[in-house]
């Protein structure tokens, strides 16, 4: 099982003292956090993509290329890559290029983006969100798998005899996750391709998340990629830890109360009860995260949100130490012990490359 963190890349004032990081400070903080992820033994760092303030990560492959050069093991991913407003040709090129630089340590999570005004800046319309996600990904999927593509669709200039370069590393396209919180169409899309499905459950009740994941699993089996319990599922998590759970609650409350997403709404107590947010001791985080498996089945990737709501970098790094030293080793051991043998790990470049070699060998024998 893979564990990691995902960052939205928001520039948010620290509500306890009004400090606002500059864009430069925030970008450098994201670098520090990504490097720390490898240092504390996490498997994945995923960056958001945004093209509007107060967010900094507008250029994910620039960022991930830099991280690739300074890490050895960490899988570089996105949360999410905007499949709606980006040109699928550019996504094909950028991430294949990144694959080469990172020696395959790359996957992506597709998302639509939910900010209406962003779409027209890129010549698109949010009302076409699902249709864009479907058509653009269909093209991207072919660009990574076919050397020469002729293509015509509704949203983009047609392509004739087009070859996306560089070709994916070892002929293996990056593994793709599709992220969606409440669109059954995207769970359907992930299932159709046999891709991964990531539910960013952090702001949502378990019952809702369950229905989305059950739909994806059922349709994954329907499309012949394996049994429902072999579908590739990723989940979010949102935690704040201190040794003593009362200290965690006291310290996190002002950040919660003023957080951009849910601030000034439900109380911290209501929100921790209704969503996966866990504010407490490392043991409480372990216990809560283990319930995800009970609710959603054995799953392959767990990403935590730690750097948001104006939390200082120092605090975030302390959280990462606890995550890496106390939480993830236990979760890894427990989840691996509980997972039946027929449930696969999340695909990596190496596993996909081996699978490709095996199927090529099988073809030669046949």
């Amino acid at each position, binding site marked *: 099982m893979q564990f990691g963190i995902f960052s939205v890349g928001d520039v948010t004032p620290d509500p306890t003292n009004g400090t606002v990081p500059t864009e430069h400070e925030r970008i450098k903080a994201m670098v520090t956090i990504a490097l720390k992820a490898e240092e504390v033994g996490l498997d994945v760092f995923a960056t958001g993509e945004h093209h509007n303030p107060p967010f900094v990560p507008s250029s994910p492959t620039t960022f991930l290329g830099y991280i690739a050069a300074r890490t050895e093991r960490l899988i570089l991913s996105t949360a999410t890559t905007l499949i709606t407003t980006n040109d699928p040709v550019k996504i094909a090129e950028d991430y294949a290029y990144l694959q080469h630089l990172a020696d395959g340590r790359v996957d992506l999570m597709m998302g639509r983006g939910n900010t209406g005004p962003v779409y027209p800046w890129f010549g698109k319309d949010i009302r076409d969100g699902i249709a864009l996600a479907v058509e653009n990904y269909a093209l991207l999927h072919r660009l990574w798998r076919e050397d020469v593509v002729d293509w015509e669709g509704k949203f983009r200039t047609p392509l004739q005899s087009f070859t996306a370069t560089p070709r994916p590393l070892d002929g293996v396209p990056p593994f793709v996750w599709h992220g969606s919180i409440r669109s059954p169409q995207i769970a359907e899309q992930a299932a159709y391709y046999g891709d991964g499905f990531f539910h960013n459950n952090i702001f949502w009740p378990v019952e809702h998340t369950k229905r*989305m994941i059950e739909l994806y699993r059922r349709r994954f089996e329907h499309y012949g990629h394996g049994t429902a319990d072999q579908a590739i599922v990723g989940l979010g998590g949102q935690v704040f830890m201190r040794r003593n759970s009362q200290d965690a609650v006291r310290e996190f409350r002002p950040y919660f109360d003023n957080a951009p997403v849910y601030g000034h*709404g439900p109380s911290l107590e209501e929100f921790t009860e209704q969503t996966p947010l866990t504010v407490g001791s490392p043991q409480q985080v372990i216990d809560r995260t283990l319930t995800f498996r009970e609710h959603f089945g054995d799953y392959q990737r767990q990403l935590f949100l730690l750097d948001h709501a104006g939390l200082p970098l120092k605090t975030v790094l302390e959280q990462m130490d606890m995550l890496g030293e106390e939480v993830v080793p236990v979760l890894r051991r427990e989840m691996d012990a509980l997972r039946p043998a027929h449930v696969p790990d999340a695909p990596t470049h190496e596993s996909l490359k081996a699978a490709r070699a095996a199927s090529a060998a099988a073809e030669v024998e046949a």
Partner: protein
Amino acid sequence: MTRRSLVVVSAGLSQPSSTRLLADQLAAATRRRLDADAEPVDLRDHAHDLTNHLLTGFPAPGLERVLDAVAHADGLIAVTPIFNASYSGLFKSFVDVLPKESLVDKPVLIAATGGTARHSLALEHAMRPLFAHLRAVVVPTAVFAAPEDWGGGATAQGSLAARIERAAAEFAVEIERREPPVVVDPFNEPTPFSELLGGSS
């Protein structure tokens, strides 16, 4: 015909509330004509959860049960106090978090209370268009209760009672001529991908 279900939403703020009293009388008059259960919902009890839903995008468990009940109900009785010439903000917040299409073709009886009879047309210029927008079937008689309607004992008398009976009769007929609503679950019946892919290659 199987037993029908009514949800009776009242946006009154005080306790006891004349808005709730009017809602109860409308429900009782309907049930005299129709074999139905009536679930009363005081929006006051869900006021915080309504705000939280607007901010977080999901309902707390108690509010979710109410929203489900509305979607599955055979008919909705909706009663609001009139504030500043329209439905109250609390009432509108509730309407704003109703899941899409949950009122399509649903019989709705609208009613309101107010401090003066001069507000009675708010039912026609605010409530009725709101529900028309949601493609509900609003019965022709809308019931407004002003202070003078309640009389000394706070019970419906005279013309208010007549209006309640007429509205309930219209409402019961609209419910009876319909099959119970079918609530489509997009998570159980996804649009197949071939259909989503449509014409694109």
